């Protein structure tokens, strides 16, 4: 990380610091609606980082990351509702649960040379049968859902993640910043270079002595653990969980959009993608309403069209292009 910071030009450093300062100070001027949108921006940036580690750096396509999100969310919320174990402790139990699932998926896939789209299918299958399992798991409410108690304004209880949007805003901001720092550090580490080598040419990487199975397993371990933390946040923010929503493939797709739009395999891609996508959705809703268009689904159609335009114009993602436009060095970062 320090290496990247050292090699970033003054303009890049200034933009980073100003952006961070603006986000830290945003609650002073932002209303609750804007805060709720920003919470989603940081949340998707964080999850995008987690997925980008596996796909963008290690080159392994997962379409079932909702599995780790759901396991993290269910573990922490179930611990809280059933045993009174708070989320700050629960997260340390949720992480190994999700990581174990990730290791199992990774081991099955890479040990038996299931790669590419077949590995993606494996990840979907695991998420799907976990959803069906949770649909029948009585202790977590099965398909009827798991519910947390009401969280009232003014009753901010940081120790049990209950309270108003300000608490969630800063937690999501911290998560997004910490993930960016972590990913930047990993990218510059020897592990990061091994991931890139494995991504670009696994046979060549193996030929030069890189244990590709080990490198991929470490990527999966970190990625699933990070996603589990996002799941804990999700569970306590929404305070209700339904297997059909948490483990749904739609959830997996939702969390990979930001890094794809922002720039796969880049450090700031997931952040830029999340900054574009969430406000785009909200902006379109506002625009539709101000134009008096009340056709159900029209916003989603426009949203899809906008995504197609962005992807066709910037197939490598928005961040590398944006970095070049802003004169920042190291656009692939």
């Amino acid at each position, binding site marked *: 990380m320090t290496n990247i910071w050292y090699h970033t030009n003054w303009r890049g450093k200034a933009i980073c610091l100003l952006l961070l300062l603006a986000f830290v100070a945003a609650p002073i001027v932002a209303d609750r*609606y804007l805060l709720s949108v920003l919470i989603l921006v940081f949340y998707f940036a964080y999850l995008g980082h987690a997925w980008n580690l596996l796909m963008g750096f290690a080159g392994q396509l997962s379409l079932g990351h909702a599995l780790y999100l759901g396991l993290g969310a269910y573990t922490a919320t179930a611990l809280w509702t059933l045993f009174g174990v708070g989320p700050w402790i629960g997260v340390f139990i949720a992480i190994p649960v999700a990581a174990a699932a990730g290791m199992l998926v990774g081991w099955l896939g890479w040990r038996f040379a299931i790669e590419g789209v077949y590995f993606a299918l494996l990840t979907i299958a695991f998420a799907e049968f976990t959803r069906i399992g949770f649909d029948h798991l009585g202790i977590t409410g099965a398909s009827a*859902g798991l519910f947390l108690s*009401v969280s009232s304004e003014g009753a901010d209880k940081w120790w049990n993640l209950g309270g108003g949007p300000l608490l969630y805003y800063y937690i999501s901001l911290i998560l997004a910043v910490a993930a960016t720092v972590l990913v930047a550090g990993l990218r510059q580490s020897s592990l990061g270079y091994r991931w890139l080598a494995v991504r670009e040419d696994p046979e060549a990487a193996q030929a030069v002595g890189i244990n590709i199975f080990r490198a991929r397993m470490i990527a999966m371990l970190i990625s699933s653990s990070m996603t589990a933390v996002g799941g804990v946040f999700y569970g306590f923010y*929404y305070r*209700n969980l*339904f297997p059909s929503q948490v483990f749904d493939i739609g959830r997996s797709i939702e969390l990979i959009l930001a890094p794809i739009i922002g720039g796969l395999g880049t450090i700031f891609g997931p952040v830029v993608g999340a900054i574009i996508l969430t406000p785009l959705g*909200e902006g379109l809703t506002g625009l539709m309403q101000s134009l008096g268009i009340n056709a159900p689904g029209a*916003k989603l159609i426009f949203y899809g069209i906008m995504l197609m335009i962005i992807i066709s114009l910037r197939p490598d993602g928005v961040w590398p292009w944006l970095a070049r436009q802003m004169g920042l060095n190291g656009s692939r970062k």
Partner: protein
Amino acid sequence: MSIDHRKFSRRSVLAGTAAGAVLLGAPAIVRAQAKALKIAVLLPQSGYLAQAGQSCHRGALVSPAVLSNFGFNVELIHIDMESNPDVARTQTERAINEGAQCIVGAFDSAGTLAIAQVCEQRQVPLIVNIGAAPQLTEQGYKFLVRNFPTGGMLVKNGLTQIQHLIDATKIAPKTAVFLHANDNFGLAQRKGMDAIFPTAGLPFKLVESIAYDPKAQDLSVEVTKIRGLNPDLVLVVTRAADAIKLIRDIVRQKFQPMGIISPGAPGLYDEEFYKALGPLADYHIDAIPWANPKSKVTQALEAEFKKQQPKFRFANECFNVGFTFDALLVAADAFKRAGTATGPELMKALMATDLADHAMIGPPIKFDAKGQNVNIPSSCVQNRGQTPTVVLPADVATMTPVLPMPPWQGRT
């Protein structure tokens, strides 16, 4: 650059501050003194719940004109929550920022709970039009009322109606099978059935409960199993597409029970059901809350619906339309009594609701301490001439029930 101190006297600053304070406080004053209650109606108009959400939305579209005729003045903000709790939450924040004084929604329990969090924190009343998860009124929300039965109430009231149906038609079923979708609604119904059926005193035995995956391509395996058990009655909890698959497989396998009855679920009265099955859609019975065909409010609502939504049949949609209308009526009535739209006062008025004239069958709308209307009875609605028709209770029925249902042969 120098500052012209003549323009910044202490008096002018004070006057400016006062004017600013008045301007900043203006929305609150306007909110409190508004003549029309501004209600945000959040519904899943797109996404996987779009069919039901759009039906509710049509109810919301026609409601202001009907309410106006009854002396209520409301202004609606229609919001599509896209069957997505993320969107439900942010759009609730936006709606309240834009002046919504009350929220109505949201058909699905997950979305409703996301909205409820915001409403609780911002002290804006939420009126649940449709949403059966018991937790909605069991979690301790102080700014939420629900004019819709819980899953348990639906089953209990549904079974009561089935008993009335047996009494009215003088049939003597000995056995029944319970078939339900394995989703959150279906499972809630199953739990209710397991808890309530043993003490309901019905004259038949429930020989088996069968869960099915709502995403299954057909229900032939389940129907084969039911056929093997040969029950007199098939009790079903379905959605529209599953109900079509179920009846097709039952007809295909030539299984002829006395009746197919839903103890409180959609599916058997949806327009798609009639279109897909034609005469085979007739004589199935749904024991659910329904619009009162003899209520003057329902009649006015139906007339307005026919005028504004000529492409849709009120008879099919009156469940969604009626409950959405009643939620808006409850809000408008509370606003009229409270004389203000400030959250706590409006909520107090909502909790004191005693509304005799409304669209759905049942006694006056009242809420208990938890915000739940515990007096929402079910009725028996039988498909007759491919139209859902109230056949029980007798005082609001427009036809008498027919059971056992006529054989499949000869219907097509």
